[in-house]
């Protein structure tokens, strides 16, 4: 389980980039490909292997008009899902 002090990072071989053909962010991984939704894109833009989950939540809470707890739940759920699927290490 991830907690606030966990530092998410993309696993080896994972690339997060903007695709100009689709006009969308894509997450490219070994033999896998994810099309993250708008919320996940904002989270993944802050994944740099240095920020903690708490820091990511703080950043998003300062920019988006939503309760901090709700944002925290979204962040943990999105990152745990990508961890299970092998794209992110927590």
């Amino acid at each position, binding site marked *: 389980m991830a907690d606030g002090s966990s530092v998410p990072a993309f696993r080896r*071989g994972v690339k997060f980039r903007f695709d100009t053909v689709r006009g969308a962010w894509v997450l490219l991984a070994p033999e896998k490909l994810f099309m993250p939704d708008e919320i996940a894109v904002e989270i993944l833009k802050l994944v740099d292997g240095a920020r903690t989950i708490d820091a990511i939540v703080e950043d998003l809470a300062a920019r988006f008009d939503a309760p901090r707890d709700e944002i925290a739940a979204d962040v943990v759920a999105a990152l745990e899902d990508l961890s299970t699927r092998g794209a992110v290490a927590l």
Partner: protein
Amino acid sequence: MSIPPPMGLIAELTHRCPLQCAYCSNPLQMDAPKSELSTADWLRVLDEAAAIGVLQVHFSGGEPMARRDLPQLVGHANKAGLYTNIITSGVLLTDEAMATLLDAGIDHIQLSFQDSTAEGGDRIGGYRGGHAKKLEAARRIREAGLPLTANFVIHRQNIERVEDMIALGETLGAERMEIAHTQYYGWALLNRNALLPSRDQLDFVNGVVDAARRRLQGRIAIDYVVPDYYAARPKACMGGWGNRFINISPSGKALPCHAAETLPGFTFASVRDWTLAEIWTGSDAFARFRGTDWMPETCRSCDRREIDWGGCRCQALAIAGDAALTDPACYRSPDHHLMDEAIAAAADHSALDLVPRRLQQAAHD
């Protein structure tokens, strides 16, 4: 209706391979070395792929490392923004080859294993010392700092060692494992009676994989799919026909799936004559089974029609005799009983002799 861009390009660079696995997914009639696309052709195809929205390129074969220009193609794809993946047996992955591919910007390597043991692996691959070379290849991949997918192909002749295979994958430091039931196309279909596992074997491997997935969760992802013959529902073959992938054969034919050349009544456009954009949006072959309009009533009335996409066209042809039918892997297919009959036929078949994959023999047929 606008056609969404393809996600992946499967570049079958060559049908040449040092191994002779009797379950190879290549067609029985393989492309001769002299018919292979040139380096310049492939460079152009990679540019065209990136331009129409392909995100990942999977260099495959045969053995893709049998092409000397592989590092050049990887480098070119990388510069075009494509995620590069090599699907290899690993027996040609020397220190020098690894260094060259790393320089070219390779993103990921999938390494296939035929068994957990040298004896079993070398027998299936028909290549003495092959298994040992694969272990070395795995070490080189990890030392290069690349992610490793270890792919274990299982069938009735090695399935009892599946726990050892998973343990080997852990020891090698794989990030992902594929416990891949043989897919019964091409050479595997020819050898099906000697490869198809029994129900008991299947139950055993299902249990082993379940336990391993729980134990390794968050560390090593295990991809595993029950083989079609024991499934209640078909797999979404290629993620839907003409929906996600373009497969280019060694001689340059653009195929909706790697086995599509078995389908009668098709003319597959060559990348020598047409651009990928023209082939993807304008060719009859890619349009034929795209979407849901082509479907028989069994599929059309099913709420999973855009999940399964009717399953596999090549299997519908091979088992039920018509590529436009519902995949007989589906329990709703009127031909579903043919899958049970194939299981029974394999169970009655005690001989384990295999017809090894051979390029020359097939080319002369």
